[in-house]
Structures are given as C-alpha cells and as structure tokens.
C-alpha cells in the first residue's frame, strides 16, 4: 500500500530542496507521517496479537482491495486540497461512472473497452464542468461540489432508473480488474499503486506539481508569477473526474454491475478524512501522497481489524472517532504547538 520509492524518499512533504544539511530521521519521513506510521504499526500489532489471521497475506490483500477505491479518491482529493480546493462530489462521480461503464458495456455488445472509455469520458466531462463552474462561475468549491454531489447522483439515478445496471462478470477484462492478480498482488491494488505513484511524482518532481503547491499556498503569488491558475484548476478537477471514473469502473468490476449509489455514497467524507489525517491543510498548499496513503492504510487496517474482532457497528463508530482524535492529538502534542486558536 505504501509507495515509498527506493531511491528518493529522503524528503519531507514540506522541504523540497535539500542543501546537504543533515536532517534527523524524523524530518526525513515527516513528523505527520511518522505519527501515522506509529499508529499503523500499533493497529497492526494490536489486531495481529488478537487475531491469528489478521496479519496473513490473504487478509492484508483484503485490506488493500477494500481500501483501493477510497484510496484512489483520497489521492485525487489530496491534489485538489493542495490547490486550496475541495471536491465533495467524488463519490457521486464514481457512482455515475460505474453506471455508465456498465450500461455502455451492455449497449456496445459487451465491449469492455468502450464501456470504460465511456465512463472515463463522462468523468472528464464532469470534472471539467466542476472546474469551470468553480473557476469561471466563481462558485466556492465546497458549494459547487456539494451541488455536484446531489446533481451527479441524480443523473446516475436517472440514467439507471435507480437500479444496478448491466452485468459485467461475464467479461474477462472486468473480471481481471475485479479479482485478477499480477505478481501475487490484486490488480486493484496495482492500479492504486500506479495512480498514487504517478500523482506523487507529479506533485514532487515536476514543475506542474510545484505550481499546484504555489496555487494553494498563495494564489496571489501564483497569479503574479504568471501561473495560469484557472487552467491548472480546471485540469485538476478533470483529473479528479478521470480517477473517480476509474474508481467507478473498479466498483463495477468488483460488484459485477453498475451501481448508481450503493458503494459510492459517503466516499467523499472518507477521502477527505484520509487526506486531512494524512497531513493536508484544508487551507491549501500543504500535504502529500505519502501521508494520505498512510492514512488510507491506517483507516483500512482499523476498519478491518474491528470487523475481524467482531466489534459491532456501534462500537466501531465510537472507536473510529476516538482513535481518529487520539491519533491527531498525539501527533500535535509531539510538535508542541501552542494551544491558542484553531489549529490548521
């Protein structure tokens, strides 16, 4: 699940150029990430002790697969939060893409590529609409995508009449996506790895990524420096559309049919939670894929562990809330921040 590349992990999210100054190991991983790693290890150890099968390779894969769709959306959420925006409509977008992929698949005489192509096309279109409404319509991203949350869900329900559509498990490619493996690892997890790695490289090693940080950190500075903020923002929302569409396609592949709502509702909160827990400042300009993925892994491991231990939903809710707060409190206590006003 984690995407630490062998060569280049020695930089924190924040510090981008190392001048050969010695950095402590903590600084290398990043304080935020360190807390998450500690929490993750703690969770794994706890449930590993309580349950023999928890740390089995099988269960690890299950955790990974279950976290993939949230993970994908959390990764793109990270980008948009870094830009200072937000996308609350990701879940609805995924639902729409899921339905479209299955319906296009069915109506094109079971051609999976056309089905997926159609879904991705819709994803791009929806993303561009979001971006244009936000940038040129001057609508606050929260409002615009809250509206999108309702509207795209409605569209998905309309095209599908509110029912699951089509059946794709007779197609080898969809089956491969849903439960195939490459080198012993589920295809789904590979997709998450590839997307996360791509976004990580984009953010850290290209000028595009650096410009995104600039836009989120101080949009006036970015504008004065000649960065075409508008283009970047629209492109980011389009990218979200594409990745949400991929998430939707995986949803179809996993559940066997296009789901307008089920499976995608509520994903936005999970994605935002993961991004924020991973160290994204909702004000923009800060955050990274590493932290987000760790947060996704932590939440996934926690959820699976609680279920494995047979904890009922009610306690799970309480435990998840309490643990989320505990993780952040510990993390903040470590930095010794002064407790005045609202934390970022």
């Amino acid at each position, binding site marked *: 699940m984690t995407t630490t590349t062998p060569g280049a992990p020695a930089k924190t999210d924040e510090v981008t150029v190392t001048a050969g100054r010695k950095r402590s190991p903590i600084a290398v991983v990043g304080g935020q990430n360190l807390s998450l790693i500690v929490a993750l290890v703690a969770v794994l150890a706890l449930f590993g002790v309580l349950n023999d099968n928890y740390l089995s390779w099988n269960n690890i894969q299950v955790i990974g697969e279950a976290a993939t769709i949230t993970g994908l959306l959390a990764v793109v959420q990270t980008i948009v939060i870094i830009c200072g925006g937000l996308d609350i409509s990701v879940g609805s977008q995924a639902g729409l893409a899921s339905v479209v992929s299955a319906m296009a698949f069915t109506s094109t005489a079971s051609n999976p590529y056309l089905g997926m192509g159609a879904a991705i096309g819709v994803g791009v279109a929806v993303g561009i609409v979001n971006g244009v409404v936000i940038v040129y319509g001057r609508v606050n991203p929260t409002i615009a995508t809250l509206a999108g949350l309702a509207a795209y869900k409605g569209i998905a329900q309309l095209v599908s009449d509110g029912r699951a559509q089509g059946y794709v498990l007779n197609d080898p490619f969809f089956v491969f996506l849903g439960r195939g493996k490459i080198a012993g690892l589920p295809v789904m997890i590979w997709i998450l790895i590839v997307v996360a790695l791509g976004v990580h490289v984009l953010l850290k090693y290209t000028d595009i990524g650096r*410009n995104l940080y600039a836009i989120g950190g101080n949009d006036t500075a970015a504008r004065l420096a000649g960065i075409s903020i508008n283009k970047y923002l629209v492109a980011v929302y389009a990218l979200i559309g594409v990745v949400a569409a991929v998430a939707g396609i995986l949803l179809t592949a996993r559940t066997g049919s296009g789901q307008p709502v089920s499976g995608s509702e509520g994903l936005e909160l999970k994605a935002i939670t993961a991004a924020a827990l991973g160290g994204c400042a909702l004000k923009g300009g800060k955050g990274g894929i590493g932290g987000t993925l760790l947060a996704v892994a932590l939440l996934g491991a926690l959820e699976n562990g609680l279920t494995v231990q047979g904890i009922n939903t009610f306690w799970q809710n309480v435990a998840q809330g309490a643990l989320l707060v505990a993780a952040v409190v510990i993390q903040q206590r470590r930095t010794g921040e002064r407790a005045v006003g609202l934390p970022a």
Partner: protein
Amino acid sequence: MTTSDTEPPVPDHFASRSGTGIAVQDVAKRFGAVQALGGVSLEFRPGRVTALMGENGAGKSTLLKILTGDHQPTQGRILLDGRPVAFGSPHDARKAGVRIIPQEPEIIPHVSVAENVYVGSLPRNAWRRLDRAELHRRIATDLARLGFDKVIDPDELGSRLTAAQRQMVEILRALIGEAKVIAFDEPTSSLAEHEVEALFTLIGRLRAQGIAIIYVSHRMKEIFRLADRVAVLRDGTVAGVLEAADISEGEVVRLMVGRDLSTLFVRQDVAGDEVVLALDGVTTDDVTGIDLTIRAGEVVALAGLIGAGRSELARAIAGDLPIRSGEIRLNGKPLNLRTPKDAIRAGIGLAPEERKAQALFLQRSIRDNTSLVSLERLRRLRFVKRRDERAVAQEFTDRLRVRTPSIEQEIGKLSGGNQQKVVLARWLIRRPKVLILDEPTRGIDIGAKAEIYRIIADLARQGVALLVISSELPEVLGLADRIAVMQNGRITGELDRAEATEEAILNLAMTDDLTAATTAVPDRPRTDPADGGLR
C-alpha cells in the same frame, strides 16, 4: 504637471540597453466610488531612478499595479519603448521586462525560499521534471550576487521567514531574467539599515545596467540618495515632477501635502518621575535579562538590527510570549501575564509590526477594526453602543487623515499606509497606560508621520508610557527621550537624548563583526545557556 524632458547626458554604458523606458499617458483608475488615479502622465527613463512620492492613498501602488499588469486602467495607455502595450496580466508584464516588488510580499508558505523565488518559472528538464540541481545553483548565485546569502537560507520554508526575508524573496523574484523596468513599492519599510545599504548598491547596479527604476518610499533620506527625479502624486494626479537638482524636502512635502510641514517632531520634556513600566531581568525564549523602565510621559525607543529581539520583547510585555524568568511591574505591582488579554486589561497595548498578519481584519470595516480593543468601554450589557462607536471611529480616522470614502469601508481596500493608521487608531482610542508601538510609521507618509509623532507627544503629555520600536534612526532620535539598544536578545546600552547619535546607536547595535550578528537569523541560539533561567 508635465514630465520634464531635460535629460542629463546619457552615460556610455547606457548603450547596453536600447529603448526609451516606460511611460503612462493619461492613465486613470477607478475602484467603484473611489477614483484612485485621475489622468496621470509620467515617463520612466532607462538608467534613471524615478522616485514616486505621495501621501498614503495618493495612488502610487495603483499606478505601479497598472504598469505591471495587475490592474487594468479605466482610461489611458502604457508605452513601453515608445510602443503602446496592454498587459493583460502580471505575467504579460513580466515577459515584457516590467517587474514589481510589491508593497506586501506574497509568500507561499509551505515551499522553500528557492521555489518561492522561482515560482512560475521553475527550471525543468524533459517531461517537465523539476531540475532541482539547477534551481539550487540559480538561487545560490542570486543570493550571492545580492549579498543575501548570509541572511536567508534557500531551503527555509516561506512560512518561517521574517518580514525582511520576505521582502528579499520579492526582490529576488523581480530580478529573474531580463528586466527593463523595475518598480520598488516601499522596499525598505521592513529592512534593516545594512540591508538597505545592500539594496541601494543593488539599485545602483541596476541603474548602471540601464534599467528604468521606479522607487516608491516615504523616507526622504532615501529619496535624496537615490533619486534622479521625483514625481509627486496627489489625489491620483501628478502634483509635480522635480529633477535631481531641484529636489528639496520642503518642496516635495509641499507638493505632496499641499502645505508646509514646519516641524516633523514635537520635542518636549513631559516625563514624570513615576515609573509606570519596569522590566527586571525579563528572559524569554528570545531575549535575555532585560532591565528597562519607562516613566509616565516618557518615550523610550528600542533600537537595534532586525533579529535583535525587539519584537519578541514587545510581545512578551504584551503577554503574547511566555516569560521564563524575571518580572514585569506596572506601577510597582508585579504582573502575571498569560495572554495579551491580561496585558490589555492591565493597561498595556501593542501595535504589532506586521499589520496584515498581526493586526488587521481585512474583510471588516474601518469602524470594526478601530473599535475592537475598546469594545469593553463602548458597550452596555454587552451591546455595542453603535453611535458612540461610530463617533470615535470617525474622530480618529479624521484625525489621522485616513483616506477613505467612509468608516464603513472594508479595510482591505485601503492603501497600505492608511491601514497602518487604522491600526494606530485602534490603540489611540483605547489609550492604555503603556503603549508599545512596533514600527508605527512603517509605510506611512510624511504628513501622517508628523501627525503620528504629534499624537505620540500628546499621549506622552497625558502621562502614557511609550515604548517605540523603530528601525529608522532619524525617527528614533527625533522621538525618544531615551533610547535602549538591543543586540542578540540583550540590551547593550541605553542612551539619553543628549548623548544619542546615529553612530552611538549603531555601535551598540552591532558587534565588531557585523555579519556575525546578522547572518545567523534562522539558527541563532535563542537563549544563552549560561544565563538562561538564572534569574
């Protein structure tokens, strides 16, 4: 009202750059009801420094923003090298070689200084890969070239920079690539004396390279040193243009303000005997063993280089930074300050140095911003007495000559200097026993400065104990009854008004090795371990 065309003979090295500089013709700009500029025509020639002067809100920044594509004029046109140009965005202007160092530095918080400087034109390899090695080479070269390499770490995050360092980032940004015109909008307002020197050397070099330089400042001294020409704006129009030979302080002031300012500083001796504020061995994370007293009616100035810890001391007195050891007494009674609120309640006020970050509520009205710390006195049963509130807000905006259509105006829409006046008004209304003013005249025009000095004198006469932090030595010398000089978190000496000179202050402010005192800005140990916690 027209630009004079009597050019001094063009030196040889001007040949290195062709072109006739940048000019505006009949440029006007209106913001809603506010006519910021009304038909301005000016020329800025290559290889010359044109100072742009004027009262707060006269339209200087607006003119510069129009020149650099950030605002579009409602009327008129811009000529670059004789050809009309239309800059749709700051980027267009940049590409055409027109640069600005804005009044308020725009810093990206969570990226490095290097990236902050090169934002928008980061060096890259194929596939848009960021070329970090090249970035690092460039920033190192730039820093060395400007002599900033000792005071700013290219890896430091934007959010951790001091005001001076932020300013340096903006300067560095403006110098990337080929520039034809560079506009400085009050670049020295947060720089220390020696950094100002470095900047002047730089400007001299740029001038020699044949770059047209526009220089906005409220500091007369700088204008005399730098300017080849002074253009004075008043109420959005050109009040006059003076050539180097004709520049005199009186004339500039007359053009700016429309009248003579006979005295800038009001000197008086009203200090009583009663000690209002006494610091006894105050030690915080940043300052060590501070002993200081201020009597009623006394104006004590705190001088020193940037990073000396003056602001930290001020914040400690104002309850915003914890005191590790030592004691603060107010009228003889020891204070236990945990928050600024405690200090304000006790009667200590602080007008902080960074108005945008530390003092202003940009989206709120002038009225709101001025009354905030005095609401306790302007309320009945916790209901704000709006009529009284409006009255005092109006009175003080009038007295400080804040240029605004009404006190209901959003403060973010005021010019920088006018915003500063509102910050001062906030504390003038409250009238505490001890008022600490951290760089109170930063970015304030000379007319308003005189007004503020007069008000400081007034407050002193009413028995307020004043602590003024200023990096402008003339101001320090002109205002203070007594001057305490800080260096490296300690007070290195006190000077009476009689014995104070610029040299004496600088001697106390600097160690023998000037750089040693100023270079270690980011990593200097905050407290002396041998002394920490002894008292």
